């Protein structure tokens, strides 16, 4: 197969990166291995588990289902950018810590990205809505209950 490279410019967590990538390079691999932002995890590489979720212009997408070249000129946000610059937790990170919403932590980055975006749109979710929003992210450790509690608590705190 001919290898065709492309020069792309992508902004991740507010930092602009210019790189040459193969057209078939997955966005997940690009973030993890080319940019060294390994906080984005991959669990299935077929779009089901949600571990690889990042935000594309603020909307959650599965980075294993996109090519890096498709992110050209878009804003990507990853788990590395969720906390404040001084390391201060986002309310959802704090709530996940307080409610024991993670065990092995492998699913956690994807859940943080999915649910921070959800909380931007819905500050007063019901438990049902939280579960619905969470249902595209698989977690094999927690049984979800503490994650649900964390999201509810974060929503409350974000409502102020």
């Amino acid at each position, binding site marked *: *197969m001919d290898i065709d490279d492309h020069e792309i410019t992508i902004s991740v967590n507010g930092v602009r990166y210019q790189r040459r990538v*193969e057209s*078939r*390079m997955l966005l997940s691999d690009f973030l*993890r*291995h080319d940019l*060294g*932002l*390994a*906080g*984005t*995890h*991959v*669990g*299935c*590489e*077929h*779009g*089901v*588990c949600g*571990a690889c979720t990042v935000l594309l212009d603020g909307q959650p997408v599965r980075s294993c289902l996109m090519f890096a070249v498709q992110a050209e000129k878009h804003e990507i946000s*990853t*788990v*590395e950018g*969720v*906390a404040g610059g001084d*390391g201060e*937790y986002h309310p959802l*990170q704090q709530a*996940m*810590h*307080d409610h*024991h919403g*993670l*065990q*092995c*932590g*492998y*699913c*956690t*980055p994807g859940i*943080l990205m999915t649910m921070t975006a959800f909380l931007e749109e819905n500050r007063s979710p019901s438990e049902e809505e*939280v*579960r*619905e929003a*969470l*249902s*595209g*992210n*698989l*977690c*094999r*450790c*927690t*049984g*979800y*209950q*503490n*994650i*649900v509690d964390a999201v509810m608590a974060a929503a409350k705190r974000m409502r102020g």
Partner: protein
Amino acid sequence: MSTRTFGEPIKRNEDRRLLTGQALFIDDVELPGMLHAAFLRSQVAHARIRKIDVSRALRRPGVVAAYVADDLGDYWKPGPLLVPPPPIAGIVFNQRTQVPLAKNKVRHVGEPLVIVIAESRYIAEDALDDIDIELEQLPAVVDIEQGLKAGSALVHEDLDSNVSAHVRQTKGNYATAAAKADHIIKRQFRYEHGISSPIETRGVVAQWDKRANQMTIWDTTQAPVFIRNGLAGMLGLSERQVRVIAPFVGGGFGPKIMMFYPEEVLLPWVSMKLNRPIKWIEDRLEHFFATTHERGQIHDAEMALTRDGRILGIKDVFLHDGGAYDPYGLTVPINSQCTLLGPYVVPNYDSTFTQVFTNLTLVTPYRGAGRQHGVFVMERLLDFAAHELNIDRAEIRRRNLIPADAFPYKNEIIFQDFQPLEYDSGNYEPVLDMALKAIGYNAFREEQAAARRQGRHLGIGVACYVEGTGIGPYEGAKVQVQSNGKVSIATGIGTQGQGHFTVFAQIAADQLGVAVTDVDVVTGDTDQFYWGAGTFASRGAVVAGNAVNEASKVVRKKALKLASDLFECAEEDLVLEDGKVSIVGIPEKFVRLGDLAGRANPMRGAVQPGTEPGLESTQYFGPPMGATANGVHAMIVEMDPRTFDLKILKYVVVHDCGTVINPMILAGQIHGGVAQGIGNAFYEKLVFDDQGQLLNASLADYLLPTALEVPRVELGHTVTKSPLNPMGIKGAGEAGAIPVGPLFAQAIEDALDLERRGVELLEIPLSPSRLFELTRNAPG
């Protein structure tokens, strides 16, 4: 100790790294000059290998090497037997362990044939298509009953049958008991247990450093010390030349302790050969074939009872699907055999099993590790007995519980740890009472009738279990006060989310009067701690936790001794808190722990004979046998009688795992176990065709429960301390997952009125379509 953290819901030390994307998982290991491996795996379950030609693959730009079995020379060997057969009279065991690359024959889909090494993972995977291969397909052994019939194809042709093992264990005399019984219940049960499917798959990175003569291996293993020892032997190195690091591991649940996976054996060898670091990360499709499973058992079981529902004895004959190789010995079926007895008095027991080789992926323990299968048989037998003897389901259980004054209770058979199966302590009836109360058992029949009048179908289930936990051999821990006053702990076990960084810190923090956040825990790095066994059988907190406790006690003593010398006062006059030792009543007279650590390692003067430098201690703990935890799950479901859609309205777990170190972390373990149990009972099924092809090898088709299927779990605890360790703790890692199958069967039967309709649920997993099949011809 002024501030006890032991027993408190202390938040986890490890969270920050995980929440900010900074924790190191296997695929985050990046090394200069690193190459990538991909495996060509068999696409058929059983075949003779006629030809493998890798020459085209080697010509692809970016491909560095490709190896087949013959290239390995003497390094090609079947893996070790991890758990030899226990000392049971008359046991049959045919040891056939997995090989690094298939030679002559492939025995399951996914068995590796070729390892390809390339400059990137993309290129390595491309090159797999370039390999020319000819396999002559053989009939596959897929069904365990068929596999034992004369004339069946043989997984291992040097054996005269597909029997991997055959074991009989007895207690009392079942035949005599049955002859006296008022009633006998006899059924056949089928129980399938799927795959653990952690969200992180497996991976290995191996780096041979030629100058240092040193091998470093990062591995998603639950047992780094065993991996080091084994690989050192295979590679012809001494243990000190091999360092194994289990970094943050994204869930294990059992299969990450299999040893040795072919990839674990091959990567270090290739790294030595090429003198380059090599990485292999399993993809999800490979995970379905190449990581070990749990699968099916078929039980022909009978229970002899008195008229008033007392168990006189149980006879059980079962088949266990072992897969293509049996490196784990008999661990899974022995767990089934032993755990079947549950919390009940069973005076007579006659249990025989046959482990069968099949052309399917290997079976090794997955959370519960065969315990589920046994519990399903026992709990279902009790349900049918209750129905036929017209006794309430909770009541028949109560009548058979081992009474509180009967502990330690001897079951007269041998458990997986080779010790006689003996329950160390327990008080079972209050656990049952608490669960019944929490689920609202007494009010339920009215609730059910009221719901039925509105056309809603509610059902209730109650299931009991015991869990053998915390088995030996031993674990160790090194506790060391640093000169900055922080405490570091190193142990040899691996960790996969169980909160070891926090619970071990709590134990040390209490002994040493420091904050939990000032205790750093290192697990899973063989250069930090040399000895140990691993994280399995719900043993991490029990065995390593007690080692941490013992080591911390010694360090505490050393600190007090040093301070008493310094202050020239008696040790009894000193308090150790807030990171310093001070004199009782004179808080301004103190010395910091960090300074004591400095004093314990002086630049001048002599370390006294019989003492050691440093404020540290290494201690080991080995329990004489496993500690037995117990519990009861209860559940109310609502079923749609047309679609068989199931909704869990209420789920209660009451259990007793002895002293609790951190109730928050314990609750998390239970929640997660229940979620896996629910998957096992109703959603997850490995579907094979008759040629051994797995038909649902993706997470889109093999359904892990999501946040919509897993309910809120209400928890209750009782505490009966274990006499087997000073802290009185028992393990809890598997308790959530064990009794969920029978609970589902019972509650669904109840909701759909299946007893009256003459339908019995004798198998797990169930599913809406299976329930449709089972009930379609039953009266309404």
